[in-house]
C-alpha cells in the first residue's frame, strides 16, 4: 500500500511536472512570436518577429464572369540582432502561384532619428505603396491611381536614410534605388500600364543609372497627416543597348497626399504626376505608346456607422478617382488614346470586425474619356487581415 501511494505520488508529480514544462514551452513560443508577450515576460527587444497580411477578393464585373482570388498573402519575418540592427523581410504569394519578395532590408539605427538601411525596399510615393495592408485602405482592391500611376507594390533594391523628428512631427526618407527596367523580359513600358511593367522587384535587376526617391511626412496638426514625395531618375537599359538612342527614358514623379480623421469621419486624398522624357525615342525604338505625362488623383471620404465605444468599425465610404496614363502624348510622338483617361466612382463598406481584420464590399463605376463611353460596373467582396 505504501509503495502504491509513493508510486502514485511520484506519478502525480511527474504529471504535474510535465504539464508545467509544456506550458513553459508554449510560453516560450508565444514570446518569440508576439511583442506583447515579450513585454509580459520582461525580455528585451530581440529575436524573431512574425507577422503578415492577406487579402482574398471576389470581383464580379457586370455582364462577365466573376473572379475569386487569394490576391495577396504576405508573410513578414523580422530578426532583431540588437537594439540597433534589424532585418525585415516580406515574402509574398500573389494569386496563390507567384512568389515574390516584397521587402528585404537591413536597418541600422544610428540614432533615435537617423537610420541607414539597404536592400529591397518600398519606394515612398503616395499613401498606398507604403501602407498597403488591406486593413488600412477602403475598397476591396487598392485605388487604381495606386496601380496605374504608382505601380504598387513598387519596390527596388537600394540604400538610403530615414528617420523622424518628434519636435517637428516630421518623418523623412531618402533613397538611391535602381530604377524601372526599360525592357523587362519581353515587356515594355506603355500606355495601358504606364510604368508598371518596368518594375524589377529586386529580381536580378539591371542597374546603370541610379534613381533618387524622397518623401516627407508631416503630422503635427492633430488628425491630419500630409506627405510630399519625389522620384527622379531614368529607366535602366541592358548593356548591349544602353548607348542606343531611346534605350531609356527619364522619370520624374511627384506626389502629394493627405489623410484626415476626426472621430467617426476619415478622409484621404492623393495627387500623382509623372513626367517622362525621351519617350518619343523610346516609343520609336520599341514600337510602344508610353505617354510623356502620367497623372492621377483621388479623394475619399468615410464615416464610421458604429458608435466609437465599439471596438468594431463599419466605415461607409465613397471615392472618386481620375487617372490618365496618356495625360500628355505630344512629346512622346504618339497619338493620345482617350481610353487611358479613366475615371471611377466607388462606394462601399469596410467592416472592421476586429482591429486587424476587415470584411469589405464595394461597387465601382469604371469610365473613360472616349465620347459616349458607357461606364462599366463591378461589384467586389473580400476580406483582409493584418497581424
Amino acid at each position, binding site marked *: 500500500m505504501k509503495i502504491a501511494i509513493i508510486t502514485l505520488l511520484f506519478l502525480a508529480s511527474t504529471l504535474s511536472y510535465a504539464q508545467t514544462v509544456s506550458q513553459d514551452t508554449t510560453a516560450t513560443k508565444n514570446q518569440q512570436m508576439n511583442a506583447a508577450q515579450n513585454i509580459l515576460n520582461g525580455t528585451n527587444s530581440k529575436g524573431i518577429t512574425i507577422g503578415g497580411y492577406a487579402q482574398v477578393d471576389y470581383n464580379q464585373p457586370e455582364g462577365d464572369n466573376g473572379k475569386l482570388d487569394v490576391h495577396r498573402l504576405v508573410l513578414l519575418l523580422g530578426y532583431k540582432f540588437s537594439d540597433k540592427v534589424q532585418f525585415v523581410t516580406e515574402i509574398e504569394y500573389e494569386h496563390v502561384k507567384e512568389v515574390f519578395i516584397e521587402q528585404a532590408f537591413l536597418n541600422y539605427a544610428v540614432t533615435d532619428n537617423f537610420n541607414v538601411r539597404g536592400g529591397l525596399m518600398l519606394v515612398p510615393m503616395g499613401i498606398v505603396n507604403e501602407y498597403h495592408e488591406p486593413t488600412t485602405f477602403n475598397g476591396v482592391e487598392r485605388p487604381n491611381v495606386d496601380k496605374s500611376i504608382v505601380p504598387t507594390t513598387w519596390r527596388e533594391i537600394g540604400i538610403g536614410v530615414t528617420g523622424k523628428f*518628434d519636435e517637428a512631427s516630421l518623418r523623412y526618407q531618402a533613397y538611391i534605388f535602381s530604377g524601372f527596367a526599360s525592357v523587362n523580359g519581353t515587356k515594355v513600358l506603355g500606355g495601358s500600364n504606364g510604368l508598371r511593367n518596368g518594375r524589377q522587384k529586386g529580381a536580378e535587376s539591371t542597374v546603370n543609372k541610379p534613381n533618387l526617391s524622397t518623401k516627407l511626412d508631416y503630422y503635427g496638426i492633430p488628425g491630419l497627416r500630409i506627405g510630399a514625395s519625389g522620384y527622379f531618375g531614368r529607366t535602366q537599359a541592358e548593356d548591349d543597348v544602353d548607348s542606343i538612342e531611346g534605350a531609356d527614358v527619364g522619370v520624374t514623379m511627384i506626389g502629394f497626399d493627405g489623410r484626415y*480623421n476626426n472621430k467617426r469621419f476619415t478622409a484621404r486624398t492623393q495627387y500623382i504626376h509623372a513626367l517622362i522624357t525621351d519617350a518619343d525615342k523610346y516609343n520609336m525604338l520599341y514600337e510602344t505608346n508610353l505617354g510623356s505625362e502620367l497623372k492621377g488623383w483621388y479623394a475619399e471620404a468615410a464615416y464610421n456607422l458604429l458608435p466609437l465605444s465599439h471596438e468594431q468599425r463599419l466605415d461607409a465610404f465613397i471615392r472618386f478617382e481620375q487617372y490618365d496614363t496618356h495625360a500628355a502624348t505630344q512629346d512622346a510622338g504618339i497619338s493620345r488614346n482617350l481610353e487611358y483617361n479613366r475615371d471611377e466612382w466607388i462606394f462601399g463598406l469596410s467592416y472592421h470586425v476586429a482591429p486587424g481584420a476587415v470584411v469589405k464590399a464595394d461597387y465601382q463605376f469604371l469610365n473613360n474619356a472616349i465620347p459616349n463611353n458607357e461606364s462599366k460596373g463591378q461589384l467586389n467582396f473580400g476580406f483582409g487581415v493584418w497581424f
Partner: protein
Amino acid sequence: MNLKGIIFSISLFILMSFGLPKNILKKVNKEITSTFKTENFQLESMLFDQKLPAKFHSNNLFNISSDQKLLGFVYVGKAPSKTDIFDYLILFDTEFVIIKSKILVYREDYGGEIGSKRWLKQFEGKSKNDNLKLHEDVIVISGATISVRSMTLAINNVLESIRILHDKGLLE
C-alpha cells in the same frame, strides 16, 4: 501630501541606479531637468506589491524630490508597437496629474509617429479619473494606429493603477 507620508505609504524603496538602463535613465533625467527646471533632484523608486493594470515594479514609478521637497512623479514603462516594444515616460505633478509624456525609445519604423510632441500633448492634464477613448479623446495619427492604440492603452492602465492605489490610500 508631504514626502514623509509617501515614504511611509509605499512598501519598498530601491535605489534608482540599480533600475533603469543607462540610456533610458539619461533621457528620463533630461526630461525632468527640462520640465522642473532643476538639475538638482533625487529619484526614489516606489514599488507596489500587488496586481495592477500597469507594472509597478522597482523601476517603473519614481518620486522626484529636490531638497526634501516633492516635485512630482515619473512613470517609465514599455508598451508594444506593431512588432516591437517602445519605452515611454509620463511625468506627473504632486497630485498625479500628467504634465508631460514622451516616447523614450522607439524601435521600429512603423508607428514611430507617436513620438510627435504635438500628439503627446493630448495626454497633458489627464489624471486618475480619466479613461481615454480612442478617436473620442485621443486623435489618431494615420499610418500609426497600432502604436496610437497601444500608447493610449498604456496611459489608461497607468492612470487606472494610480486610481486603485489612491483609493487604497497607498499614495496619500
